């Protein structure tokens, strides 16, 4: 339902405020610079230095004028129930973000920011991917703090949200504090790095094979080849070590000092050693909490927890600036308590197993996933030696059995009066929790194979990028019942609390 509410004009509006003057020279778009310099390069050749220098001054001057104008025209002001941003030199743009719609507020500070005492403030609403959020770059640190406080208090004044009001005022304090050695472990056990041990194992395997080769010292060519191969492998080994070290350093710099603090119904998530990021998510805006355990971390007894708000994606989103907030590493024993604390529901719903017949489906899913790659690799291997091809094919066709058994064992779903949860995954598992009051809709789907075994998949949709819980291969009756529970009586659930 589109809302027609706009900031009331009658209320005494706060005066429009400009950003920090540093906005003029911080983050100058490289496109503008390149556009200005490209003609100069052409001109420099044909005219003398004097002309070039004159043009350079002119170009820098023009850029400065544009930037200063942009800074002068970029203002924001607070009204009773919204923040209004105006910007643009030639085409003017006005954005109104109602306090009540704010999903997430972030204060980001790079190293330079910390030196200058400035920060960037970003405000996320539940817009879709095409809508960029409101970003105030650069403001002073004090202003960012003040603004965040204002956004919080005015949101409360503008509209005591019924959802926030339903929950008792939560106790404040630090919920999570990740020690540095955990951040380090997290950095070197990331899913992307899991390929490294596999590569190393493979390398040692080849080394073993090479030693079996009977190298004839008189055959210089073969000797040189062997040395070359060993050299290449040493290089790969060194690169792998460097890669791990690099991941460790970037991980520690990014996630060092990670902590989650609860304050006034908000979750403050702070992280970073050099560049810092501090995000505030109102607890009532938490859409989803995901617990991920990749196999290395499971062996070591750790997992990660990610908080998802419905904050829009923005166009600039890259892997590095995901809006979700991931607690890099938590000891297994503390995960349940922390998830319960974050979602304010302890104990968590128990995970019910899926019917036995889902095991066949799990194996079949894995078979479907590995069949084609296996066939390709086996075909290539068979070209080298038929025996190798058969081995590869057999491995590929048998692997789905243990993987399917694992996957089935990890399948689970459950609900209590507040939360719904599902878990899936074979080697790396993901457990997704969502508050029932955040469920936007459900879909029960059943393929032909599932219908034959009276199974179905229940998709529980919540807002936010990639949002949802997938309850895979559950008994068809349970899928329909759980779906009905999740959408129909949520009102009664709210009253019960």
């Amino acid at each position: 339902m589109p809302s027609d509410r706009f900031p009331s004009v009658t209320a005494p509006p706060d005066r429009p405020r400009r950003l920090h003057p540093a906005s003029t020279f911080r983050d100058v778009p490289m496109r503008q610079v390149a556009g200005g310099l490209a003609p100069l390069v052409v001109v420099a050749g044909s005219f003398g230095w004097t002309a070039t220098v004159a043009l350079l001054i002119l170009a820098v001057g023009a850029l400065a004028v544009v930037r200063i104008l942009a800074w002068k025209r970029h203002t924001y002001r607070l009204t009773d129930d919204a923040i209004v941003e105006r910007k643009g030199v030639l085409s003017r743009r006005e954005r109104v973000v109602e306090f009540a719609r704010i999903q997430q507020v972030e204060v980001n500070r790079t190293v330079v920011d910390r030196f200058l005492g400035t920060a960037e403030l970003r405000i996320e609403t539940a817009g879709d991917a095409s809508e960029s959020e409101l970003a105030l770059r650069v403001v002073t640190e004090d202003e960012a703090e003040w603004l965040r406080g204002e956004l919080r208090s005015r949101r409360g004044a503008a509209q005591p949200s019924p959802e926030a009001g339903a929950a008792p005022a939560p106790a404040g304090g630090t919920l999570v504090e990740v020690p540095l050695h955990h951040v380090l472990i997290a950095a070197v056990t990331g899913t992307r790095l899991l390929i490294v041990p596999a590569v190393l194992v493979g390398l040692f395997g080849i080394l073993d094979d090479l030693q079996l080769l009977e190298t004839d010292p008189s055959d210089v060519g073969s000797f040189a080849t062997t040395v070359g191969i060993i050299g290449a492998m040493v290089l790969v080994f060194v690169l792998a070590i460097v890669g791990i070290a690099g991941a460790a350093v970037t991980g520690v710099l990014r996630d060092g000092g990670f902590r989650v603090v609860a304050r006034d119904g908000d979750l403050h998530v702070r992280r970073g050693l050099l560049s810092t990021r501090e995000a505030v998510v109102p607890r009532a805006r938490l859409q989803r909490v995901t617990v991920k355990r990749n196999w290395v971390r499971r062996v070591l007894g750790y997992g990660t927890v990610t908080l998802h708000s419905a904050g829009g994606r923005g166009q600039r989103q890259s892997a590095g600036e995901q809006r979700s907030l991931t607690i890099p590493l938590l000891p297994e024993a503390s995960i349940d308590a922390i998830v319960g604390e974050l979602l304010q529901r302890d104990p968590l719903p128990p995970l019910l197993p899926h019917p036995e017949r889902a095991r066949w489906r799990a194996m079949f899913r894995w078979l479907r996933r590995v069949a084609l790659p296996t066939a390709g690799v086996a075909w290539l291997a068979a070209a080298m030696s038929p025996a190798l091809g058969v081995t590869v094919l057999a491995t590929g066709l048998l692997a789905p059995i243990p993987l399917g058994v694992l996957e089935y064992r990890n399948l689970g779903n459950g609900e209590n009066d507040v939360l719904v949860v599902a878990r899936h995954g074979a080697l790396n598992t993901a457990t997704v929790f969502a508050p029932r009051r955040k469920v936007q809709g459900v879909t029960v789907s059943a393929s032909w194979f599932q219908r034959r075994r009276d199974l179905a998949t229940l998709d529980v949709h919540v807002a936010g990028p990639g949002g949802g819980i997938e309850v895979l291969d559950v008994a068809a009756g349970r899928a329909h019942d759980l779906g009905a529970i999740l959408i129909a009586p949520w009102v009664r659930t709210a009253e019960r609390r």
Partner: protein
Amino acid sequence: MSERPALRPLHPTVLTLWRIRGLLSAAPGLLLALAAGALGAPGWLAVLGLALAGAGVTVGWWWASRRYDRFGYSVTEEVLRVRDGVLVHTDAAVPLFRVQHIDIERGPLERQLDLATLVVHTAAPAADTTLPGIASREASSVRDEILEASREAAARHGIEDVDAV
């Protein structure tokens, strides 16, 4: 979902729409047959093309009637429910107070057949629901019906629209 209200079917003209789209799937096969004939390729290639085209039309025809039989939707006090799917059966349910806005879309073919498609949006893109093949003159009344039910549900639950997420 537990209580199953009678499902409404789509307008029968949507069968024509889907069958025309099914006919289009015969195009690659026909092109193959034509090209084979024009370029003097071996006869079996033309036959293969015709067979593909024939299979496309048959499957498309069968698909359209199966989907029409499967498809059904209902708007109750609380829930919009849509049943769809031929090979993969789906059964979607959206609490009405979650509805954000509704689009009415009409493609060129749909305009010819006096049909419209309703897309019901919620805050979760995955929960968006599509009702294809609503008669044009009923489209706005179905939309208003859903919006009205949505407003009533929201009022009943005491939910401010801005807090739907």
